[in-house]
């Protein structure tokens, strides 16, 4: 993938410690304009710390940050209108309605109330505009938070776990909304614990752990490079693990939950070899996912 302009965000050896905890440990990342970038990693990996350093909300101990060619700290009035931020805690003005909240946020950027109406519409909340922010559902809250982030039409959007605590349908809707944002050219940096979603949405992801980048690439590339390959799952008893191990193209054999699991980088060859030994209709093909890569890197046992 190529990004014509200069990068949207450049981090160079950024570090931040809290006492003994190295929350962000010499991280260098470059994010292109129009890129959809995912920050992944377990709780405490440093995602929020890193994203807030880039936003200029926290100061790094070391390293340099450039966002759209400018430094985010000290508070940079030229940069602020170009970025939109959703913090991990959704922030709403006390006791206002959704619409009033957005009108206030728009005014913070010197924009008229009509802008707020557009943002409300963009996230499909027009019908709930007059509901108090404390009364709207979790999914609507999340959408209102994103509307607040987008009200001033920023170039770069930072979202910290926008899909946390959403039901599957709301999550899918939000995913579609984020795709639309990317389609109109926004650069998006987001964190999530939903790896399937990250795999679908992100151009590239960085997997963080203990403040360090363990892997950084497109989900497809990470999966390919991991060598995890595809898993073929066959009901046990159709063929013995020993037999399976001798088949052309099989890299590994395991028995999991009463199923025989074959690992391969060459699905077609293995299926051809299996033909006859087992009914192919019973064979379930599971391509490796970003989650497999993630779990392998983070060191949890393979599912």
């Amino acid at each position, binding site marked *: 993938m190529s990004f014509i302009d200069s990068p949207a965000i450049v981090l160079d050896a950024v570090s931040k410690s809290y006492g003994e905890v190295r929350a962000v440990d010499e991280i260098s990342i470059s994010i292109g304009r129009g890129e959809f970038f995912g920050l992944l990693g377990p709780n405490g990996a440093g995602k929020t710390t890193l994203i807030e350093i880039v936003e200029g909300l926290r100061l790094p101990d070391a390293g340099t940050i450039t966002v759209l060619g400018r430094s985010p700290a000290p*508070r940079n009035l030229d940069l*602020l209108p170009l*970025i939109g931020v959703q913090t991990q805690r959704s922030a709403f003005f*006390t006791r*206002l309605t959704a619409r009033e909240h957005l009108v206030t946020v728009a005014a*913070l*950027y010197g924009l*008229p109330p009509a802008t707020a109406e557009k943002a409300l519409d963009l996230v499909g909340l027009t019908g709930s505009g007059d509901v108090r922010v404390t009364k709207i559902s979790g999914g609507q809250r999340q959408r209102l938070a994103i509307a607040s982030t987008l009200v001033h039409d920023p170039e770069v959007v930072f979202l910290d776990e926008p899909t946390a605590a959403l039901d599957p349908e709301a999550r899918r809707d939000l995913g579609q909304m984020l795709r639309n944002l990317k389609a109109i050219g926004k650069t998006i940096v987001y964190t999530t614990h939903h790896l399937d979603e990250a795999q679908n949405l992100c151009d590239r992801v960085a997997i963080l752990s203990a403040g360090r980048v363990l892997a950084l690439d497109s989900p497809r590339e990470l999966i390919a490079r991991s060598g995890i390959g595809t898993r073929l799952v066959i009901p046990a008893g159709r063929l013995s693990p020993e037999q399976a191990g001798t088949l052309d193209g099989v890299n590994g054999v395991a028995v999991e939950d009463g199923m025989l699991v074959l690992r391969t980088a060459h699905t077609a060859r293995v299926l051809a070899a299996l033909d006859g030994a087992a009914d192919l209709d019973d064979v379930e093909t599971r391509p490796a996912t970003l989650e497999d890569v993630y779990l392998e890197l983070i060191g949890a046992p393979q599912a």
Partner: protein
Amino acid sequence: MSAYAALSRAVYKAAVRDATTVFFTFAFPLIFLVIFALIFRNQEVADTGRGYVDYIAPGVLSWGLANAALFGVAFTLMQWRNDDLLRIIRLSPTSIWSVIGSRYVVALGIGAAQCVLFVGVAMLPVFGMRPDPTWPLAIPIMLLAVTAFLALGLIVGSAANTPEAVAAIANCVVVPMAFLSGSFYPLELMPTWLQEVSRILPMRYVNDGLTYAFTGFGTMADYLISCAALVVFTAVFAVVGVRTFRWSNDS
């Protein structure tokens, strides 16, 4: 709409939509005023020819003004910081002075409304308050009182991270101060040393200034000293307030 106007509206709506705020700002001091005024109805303060209500009303008013300004700004600041709203503001091109200014203008409006309400009620025939023609001198005191206690509220709002903590700290500050400043109980009836202690409390000067404005008790020099004292308190509180200010609970 300017950011300043929008924030003022947001603060105003948050205040009037909260029954607790409305109660403690207007109804609660009014209840005190009515109770005291009824207890001392038709009684005159010796040698003055004035009803007790002329002294009670400025006392309750000074307490009510201080209470509302301090609580209001402390709650707003704590809440906006906890809810990440300060960060949202910080991430916009709006300056922090618009934020403080908007809170200030709402506090002034509330203070003016309190003055009109409390004095208006005290002047009802049943209570019979008769303000002196010098009453406009109450206006600068009202402005200075709101300003000083708003600055004090900034400190409380930065020190406290929960609504409970705001309430606890603010009550510990305001309630004893109201007693020691003569808001509920005439200073002249207190031991001399307590009267001296009251000189380090801003509410005393609010009370003195309002009492002079409404009843002519004291001298113009005392009145000017009250104004000057409130300016000094404001400056001290503002310096501490700016130093303790935090945009968020993380750094």
